[in-house]
């Protein structure tokens, strides 16, 4: 049955953004009654594929076929009309509208006067939530929903459109074990009704549990499409990464020095509570946990970007003024943030302006800047990090993800920090650069820098960290030494009692 005509076929598509080729010649079929996993590292081009199927991007070359016929989507409405529903990695709700309206948007039930039937809309939403087994008030506005709840509303939205093709871009990233189970039950029943499912996830146990077929991508290229049953997890990882994992983490052994960062009883209402840990010179401490556990929030509060209600942050024994990134920088702290595009860099500004932004004041002569000093400083640091770039005056947005990340690192390393906080340091960058970043962090720590690393990638956490602080729902679940930290021990702590393995 599965080998019958594909509900949807991706045929030899390519897509470039400026000079960066995001997807090159990828083909795979989605069959009705089958769940199909799309795997690849961050930056492998999965999200671009999703956006093409959603009608957001049009392929530069190649075609999409729905039930054997070539289609061209002028926009998301066309994709929707073709029976494709997409659940994005980041929820796309309307904060001002009620949950019920969010679900119904586009195909609201109508009364005879073609007015919106609010009662029916409300009942529908309740029915969908019952099917998903969750309690969300359909009348409340979407603003302020937790990420997990937002994701559930997205899933309800997709269910309500009765799509034949369901694309899910990491829907489980923010869900707890119970919620994941419930989601899978719904997805399975949809699949058994003949829908085609495309499922993107970084958790291989989910893929082997849910999916029949898998397509593997690497650096925008198609590697293989095979039955999941024919592959082991190790096979998948090897093809995804293109080399063995162990080679990726060149961790150097260091004897830790004195305490650089001391966080005590840090709390912020509704975000995190009673966080205490310290970091010594030469140490790499990883903050692990699920998305939404509050890891980035803790480090942003430590750096002073966000406020906190209680607790203290000390750098080398001196208490830091809260809520002031400038004070943190003066104390020798640097933060390479999670979201490169929104927090780390100013995409429209040139590379040199970005690199020198945190220390223009120091580069100024008599308070004036004429460009020369900035250019020299930027050139020095981008060269040190082997950044591939055309001109220092080019907008930083024209660089590839990996080189952008090097610019962020250059920006902060140039301030000469004693404590480096890196949040998802290798998200969305290619494998080669990833290894370079890991090597860099390792050698910086060896030179006596204290490093705090927030990461969602378990191999990275296990490979790089001297100690692992695991957060769960805003609290410290446990602290594991390098020897104690295994995939199981970290995940168990991160998910608490809800782990079902």
């Amino acid at each position, binding site marked *: 049955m599965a080998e019958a005509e594909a509900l949807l076929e991706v045929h030899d598509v390519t897509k470039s953004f400026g000079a960066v080729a995001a997807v090159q010649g990828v083909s795979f079929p989605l069959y009705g009654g089958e769940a199909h996993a799309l795997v690849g590292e961050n930056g492998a081009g999965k999200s671009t594929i999703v956006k093409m199927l*959603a*009608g*957001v991007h049009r392929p530069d070359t190649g075609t999409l076929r729905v039930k054997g016929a070539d289609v061209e989507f002028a*926009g*998301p*409405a*066309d*994709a*929707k*009309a073709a029976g494709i529903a*997409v659940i*994005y990695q980041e929820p*796309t*709700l*309307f*904060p*001002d*509208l009620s949950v019920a*309206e969010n679900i119904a*948007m*586009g195909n*609201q039930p*109508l009364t005879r006067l*073609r*007015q*919106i039937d609010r009662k029916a809309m409300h009942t529908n939403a309740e029915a969908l939530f019952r099917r998903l087994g969750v*309690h*969300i*008030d359909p*009348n*409340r*506005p979407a*603003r*302020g*929903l*937790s990420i997990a*709840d937002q994701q559930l509303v997205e899933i309800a939205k997709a269910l309500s459109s009765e799509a034949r093709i369901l694309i899910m871009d990491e829907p489980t990233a923010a869900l707890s074990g119970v919620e994941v189970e419930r989601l899978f039950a719904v997805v399975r029943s949809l699949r058994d009704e003949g829908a085609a499912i495309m499922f993107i996830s970084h958790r291989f146990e989910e893929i082997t549990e849910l999916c029949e077929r898998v397509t593997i991508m690497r650096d925008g290229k198609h590697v293989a499409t095979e039955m999941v049953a024919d592959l082991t997890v190790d096979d998948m990882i090897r093809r995804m990464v293109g080399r063995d994992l162990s080679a990726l983490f060149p961790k150097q052994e260091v004897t830790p020095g004195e305490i650089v960062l001391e966080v005590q009883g840090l709390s912020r*209402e*509704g*975000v*995190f*509570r009673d966080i205490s840990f310290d970091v010594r010179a030469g140490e790499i401490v990883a903050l692990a946990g699920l998305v939404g556990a*509050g890891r980035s929030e803790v480090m942003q509060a430590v750096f002073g970007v966000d406020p906190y209600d209680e607790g203290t942050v000390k750098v080398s024994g001196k208490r830091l003024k809260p809520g002031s990134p400038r004070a943190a920088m003066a104390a020798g702290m640097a933060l390479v943030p999670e979201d490169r595009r929104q927090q780390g860099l100013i995409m429209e500004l040139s590379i040199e302006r970005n690199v020198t932004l945190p220390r223009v004041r120091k580069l100024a002569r008599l308070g004036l800047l004429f460009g020369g000093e900035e250019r020299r400083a930027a050139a020095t640091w981008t060269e040190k990090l082997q950044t591939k770039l055309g001109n220092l005056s080019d907008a930083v947005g024209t660089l590839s993800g990996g080189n952008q990340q090097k610019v962020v690192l250059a920006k902060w390393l140039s301030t000469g920090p004693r404590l480096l906080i890196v949040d998802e340091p290798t998200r969305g960058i290619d494998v080669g650069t990833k290894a370079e970043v890991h090597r860099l962090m390792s050698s910086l720590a060896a030179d006596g820098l204290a490093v705090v690393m927030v990461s969602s990638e378990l191999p990275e956490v296990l490979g790089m960290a001297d100690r692992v602080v695991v957060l769960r*729902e*805003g*609290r410290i679940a446990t602290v594991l030494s390098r020897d104690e930290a295994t995939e199981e021990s970290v995940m168990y702590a991160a998910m608490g009692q809800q782990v079902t393995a």
Partner: protein
Amino acid sequence: MTPIAFQKPARSLMKTRELGIVLALVLLIVYTTANNHRFLSGQSIRDNLLNTAILAVMAAGEAVVVITRNIDLSVGSVLGISAWASATMVSSHQGLPMIVPIVVGLLVGALCGLLNGILVRYGKVPALVVTLGTLYIYRGITYSWAGGKQVNADKLPQHFLDFANASVLGVPWLVLIAVVVVGGISVLMRNYRSGRELYAMGSSPQAAELAGIRVARNLLGAFILSGALAGLAGVLFAARFGTVDAAAGTGYELNVVAAVVVGGVAVFGGSGTVWGAGLGALLLTVIGSALAVLDINQFWQQAIVGFLIILAICADRLVAVRIARSLRKRDAHV
């Protein structure tokens, strides 16, 4: 989780916004009437409503545009061009029935709005820039066309001038039109798909694109509506004041935006109601006449309007912060 517990505060908070304006209106009217009984006389009420009508019609269109997270600053100039077009037309064709200038005004305005919409959507030029530009362009066209002349009441046909004061069952036409426009668009925005899509677009433009909402069509619709209503307001302006020159409606855009903001429509889109904007227009007008009745220096009016605008956005901000805090507390697992 207590889903029902939330329902009440959120709803009542939403409601207080319009309720607040009604309350302010009532207080103002009661206080003024206590000082001068003529303030609630038939003539005074009639004057207030007539003075509100034109502003309310424009505010209804502006509210729709602002709800989509855009702005239309060209409404004053559109009023000018439409007032001039209709006045010159009826002065040279005295026999035309009233409906003709109204339709012409609507069309002229719709055309102006269409140009705004096209530039915003397809030219990808921010609405503030586009409509600031067309504010100048439409006004410039009117000036070139009028060439310093003006149309006086003695050149306009009597039925045209009567229209402003004539009434059906005691309700002046002008007021009736305003009520129908504000009421009709309120219903459209609340109960119809396109209306909800306009809210969605203002609430999250990216999500609206991803949801497959026909953003282009809706956006053009919003600008055409705003333009057409400003055009209609131009005809009503000509009929009510009888004298039209190229400067008609200069600076109105600020009053219109003020009415919308005071009426509780958030400048960043997604929330607020059209009838709230109508109430905003009424409140601003009543303040003006109350000052006169209370024998307060007329010059205070504009300052009070400014103060009200700031008060309104402060209040909206406060409500938003409080909702966010109550939601965060409720959802917090910590």
